[in-house]
């Protein structure tokens, strides 16, 4: 499973095609892309802070947990940090397996753990001020199903 932590933008489509080409034998590929939303219409940018060193270790651990739990043909985690504009990609995961249910479950597992166990913090900058995005109880709760 490949893990990348980067400030540079990426193209989910290119990543998906490259990932799919590298997992021969898979019958099912699932991807998730997270995008900077601007619900209020006032978001200037989103700043993502992370913990260099621990971030890579945490994502690798999450990836290994997924691989131990399911028989995957492959997996990919990309997560950006730094300053992002509304509409930009924040992160992406992709999973490949023989059958669809495994690919879906593993992708949701990666996302659930990434949300609450990888050391990233988001700050929204708007015209009226900055605010750290608060963790949601529902994100922590969603770990209970695994």
């Amino acid at each position, binding site marked *: 499973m490949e893990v990348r932590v980067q400030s540079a933008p990426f193209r989910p489509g290119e990543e998906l095609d490259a990932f799919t080409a590298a997992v021969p034998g898979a019958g099912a590929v699932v991807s998730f892309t997270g995008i900077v939303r601007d619900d209020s219409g006032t978001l200037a940018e989103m700043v993502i802070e992370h913990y260099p060193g621990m971030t890579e*270790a945490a994502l690798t651990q999450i990836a290994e947990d997924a691989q131990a739990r399911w028989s995957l043909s492959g997996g990919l985690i990309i997560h950006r940090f730094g300053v992002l504009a509304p509409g930009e990609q924040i992160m992406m995961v992709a999973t490949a397996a023989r059958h669809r249910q495994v690919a879906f479950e593993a992708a949701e597992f990666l996302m659930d753990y990434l949300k609450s166990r990888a050391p*990233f913090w988001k700050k929204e900058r708007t015209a009226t001020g900055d605010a750290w995005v608060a963790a949601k109880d529902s994100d*922590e709760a969603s770990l209970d199903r695994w």
Partner: protein
Amino acid sequence: MIDVLYFAWVRERIGLPKERVETGAQTVADLVEELRQREARYAAAFEDLSALRVAVDQELSDFDAPLSGVREVAFFPPMTGG
């Protein structure tokens, strides 16, 4: 000597991302107590421990974790990745 790191609003409240701390604290909680005594900005950052998470040597840990042999402790709010 332990490297102490702060992230997100913990970093902002304390006003720095990282510092080396000379401490005889036995546990993370002891270290927090020492830091709280220093200045109001530390007291503000560590006001509500339930709003904080801690990593010891880059692994998520608990406030009662021992500090023996530890090189790096980080304090931050709950993570918001993804």
